């Protein structure tokens, strides 16, 4: 039983928790998130929080781990004209939570709302490829593309922007008069900076959530989040970075809680700049690949909360099961490789040099990110032991973004985008100069060919050719040493023991609250 605050009881003053918090034993789950859920427009980005958008709004097709798709608001679909359009049969009897029927007209009005705001979605190839949508009848809709684009269905499964709000709340300027979707939850109340309250959508077409209500308290600090879990003020912590590794380990050994890790969701890595001295030398990149003790980083810095990454994308992503392995950690071999390339340690010196130029790299990270800082320091130590000097540059996120755009880095931390963006959307972005990946690859002799084949793999309709092109791309990038994969990001869930085991969603921000229940 949850302890009632003593002073409130003594004072006779009712404890003025939100009504939902009071009822937390009677079908209310309590969760926390660092910021408020936002206005919850399914077609827009910040400050809308993706976990909440996924609760209210549904896609036509849903992504399942491993890259397959299952029916959601569409029960069947078919490609036409060599992949230039898709016809969707819509699920019958679905209504938005305001009672408006979900039909072909609703799909068309949402697609048009997204297309009216195309520049906002320029990062997503799908939106550039969509030509329009038309209702064939009340339950059938056709989506026309400008050309074949194989990831179209995958990108329709994204949390945003192609999900569906009730046409009754859509405004001409793209905003909503209220957040109304077809999903298993409705937003009942928002107190900015304090909490968001979701209630079960009683008219939901699918399996209804076990809990009546979900209270999401705004908790910015991870230590406070852990303490709130201990006091029972929240039931659950869930996410990739909602809790630090030490605290996760502590909860894992406490019998009052259950701590679990999801399968790999994305990759934490260092991009190595092939267009900038001294990492423009392939021997230096290969020495870095073999000279950093990845296993030690995972064991000591990440406390084993993320599996070590051998490749840019984990093998549970589509087209990525290629059997590639990272170079074995071998400090002597890395040093020998540098020796052979002419990088010598000067007498009494600790940093190698060639032609009078020292072997020093700028290792850039976000200063406020304690984990990146700890990883950077460990990497600096490993590199120093093979005679590579690493200058640590910790800056705010904005400045770090600027370096990624300009290529002003030697090594820089980054993550892949995770399911369902990996590998196709992440690789698509490698062609844009504003991404660290483009900058890191810019010095490779194969760069033009890499970009050409990325373009080809996104538009080919030949599955065998797609498989082969991905194999070439991923193998080439793997061998080039422009990435040092560190670990695979996982969602970490810590729950109180009175909650049944928490399932994981297929993607990073799809939290299956609807399948959570009391034990």
């Amino acid at each position, binding site marked *: 039983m949850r*302890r009632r*605050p*003593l*002073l*409130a009881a003594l*004072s006779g*003053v*009712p*404890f*003025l*928790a*939100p009504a939902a*918090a009071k009822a937390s034993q009677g079908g209310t789950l309590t969760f926390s998130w660092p*910021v408020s859920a*936002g206005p919850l427009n399914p077609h827009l*980005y*910040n*400050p809308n929080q993706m976990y909440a958008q996924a609760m209210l709004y549904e896609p036509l097709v849903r992504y399942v781990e491993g890259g397959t798709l299952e029916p959601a608001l569409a029960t069947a679909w078919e490609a036409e004209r060599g992949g230039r359009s898709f016809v969707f049969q819509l699920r019958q009897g679905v209504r938005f939570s305001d009672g408006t029927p979900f039909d072909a007209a609703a799909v068309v009005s949402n697609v048009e709302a997204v297309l009216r705001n195309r*520049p*906002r979605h*320029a*990062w997503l190839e799908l939106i550039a490829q969509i030509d329009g949508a038309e209702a064939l009848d009340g339950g059938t809709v056709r989506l026309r593309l400008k050309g074949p684009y194989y990831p179209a269905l995958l990108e329709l499964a994204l949390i945003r922007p192609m999900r569906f709000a009730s046409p009754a709340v859509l405004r001409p300027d793209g905003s909503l008069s209220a957040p109304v979707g077809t999903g298993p939850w409705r937003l009942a109340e928002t*107190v*900015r*900076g*304090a*909490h968001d309250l979701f209630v079960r959508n009683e008219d939901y077409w699918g399996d209804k959530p076990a809990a009546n209500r979900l209270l999401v*308290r*705004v*908790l*910015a*600090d991870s*230590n*406070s989040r852990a*303490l*709130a879990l*201990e*006091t029972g*003020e929240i039931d659950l912590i869930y996410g990739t970075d909602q809790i630090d590794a030490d605290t996760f380990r502590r909860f894992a050994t406490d019998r009052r809680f259950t701590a679990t890790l999801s399968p790999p969701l994305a990759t934490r890595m260092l991009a190595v700049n092939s267009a900038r001295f001294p990492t423009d030398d392939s021997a230096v990149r290969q020495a870095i690949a073999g000279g950093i003790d990845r296993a030690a980083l995972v064991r000591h810095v990440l406390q084993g909360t993320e599996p070590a990454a051998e490749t840019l994308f984990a093998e549970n992503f589509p087209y990525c099961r290629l059997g590639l392995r990272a170079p074995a950690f071998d400090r002597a071999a890395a040093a020998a490789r540098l020796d052979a390339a002419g990088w010598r340690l000067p007498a009494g010196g600790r940093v190698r040099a060639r032609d009078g130029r020292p072997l020093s790299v700028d290792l850039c990270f976000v200063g*406020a990110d304690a984990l990146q800082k700890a990883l950077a320091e460990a990497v600096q130590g490993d590199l120093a032991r093979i005679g590579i000097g690493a200058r640590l540059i910790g800056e*705010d*996120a*904005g*400045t770090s*973004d*600027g370096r990624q*755009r300009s290529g002003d880095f030697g090594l820089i931390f980054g993550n892949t985008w995770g399911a369902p963006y990996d590998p196709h959307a992440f690789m698509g972005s490698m062609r844009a100069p*504003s991404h660290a990946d483009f900058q890191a690859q810019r010095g490779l002799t194969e760069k033009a060919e890499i970009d050409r084949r990325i373009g080809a793999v996104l538009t080919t309709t030949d599955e065998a050719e797609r498989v082969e092109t991905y194999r070439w791309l991923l193998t080439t990038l793997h061998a080039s040493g422009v990435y040092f994969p560190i670990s695979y990001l996982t969602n970490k869930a810590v729950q109180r023991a009175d909650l049944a085991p928490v399932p994981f969603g297929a993607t990073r921000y799809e939290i299956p609250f609807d399948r959570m229940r009391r034990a």
Partner: protein
Amino acid sequence: MLYFLARRIAGLLLLLLVVSFVFFAMLRLGRGDPALDYLRLAQIPPTEAALAAARESLGLDRPLVEQYLTWLDHALRFDLGRSWYTSRPVTQEIAHYLPATLQLAAAAVLVMLLVGVPFGIWAALRRDRWPDNATRILAFIGVSVPNFWLAFLLVLLFSVTLGWLPAIGRDGPTSIILPAIATAAMSACVMLRLVRTSVLGALGEPHLRFARARGLARRTILGRHVVLNAMVPPMTMLGLHVGELLGGAMVVETVFAWPGIGRWALLAIQNRDYPALQGFVLAMTTVFVLCNLVIDLLHAWLDPRVRLGLPA
């Protein structure tokens, strides 16, 4: 008194003008590209065309002074722009979050006075005896402990171990107790030592001998001639510590999930949300200066030498 008030209000307006310009210039002349920050927060892909459009719409392509004058023109009409992160008007955001912070700061001042004044007087009246030594140790510890650490210790003891008080949120009268103590701890200890020193100083004043000669009761002498006179320096310190309390609230609000302006500002700092930061600094400067104005008025009321401009 009216002249005194008018002079202080004129000073306040001048100060706001200077602070707003200096901060505006610091934000614009610092590292990084505001247009890029805007696009990053709005999650608009930062193409060259988008950057150029952002610079134009935000006025970043105009000279700094012109940008500032435009901002000032809007600010005088209570329009501080829109947050780049939430897209809401900054004035609305401040109006939403400031009351919680003021409530916390007021509770912290109360804690500060309840601890600092009585214990300071007690320590002075028991000089070099155990109450004085005990409060000295307490004050030493109090000023040395960072407020975020104290906040976590309080939560561990009163919420996790004893279960007496909520660890997070602003859900009822009890939820303010721990945040107020964590916010006020350092200032309360400084207040305690200052009250002690000030009371000791007042106890040595020659006019007390005459008061005793007039046959006044010890309680009257202490109350009217010692404590009242000794309150002037602590009151000045109270004004100065308002800034300390508001700054401390930024950290404490984050630990206790207190939905105040400090936590909102922290998010704005992390996001480099320029309009929000500019509005925050302006609001905090106003609150800080107004609090000091009130303290000065009290000071003038307590000490006629101040309002008459006589040497102390």
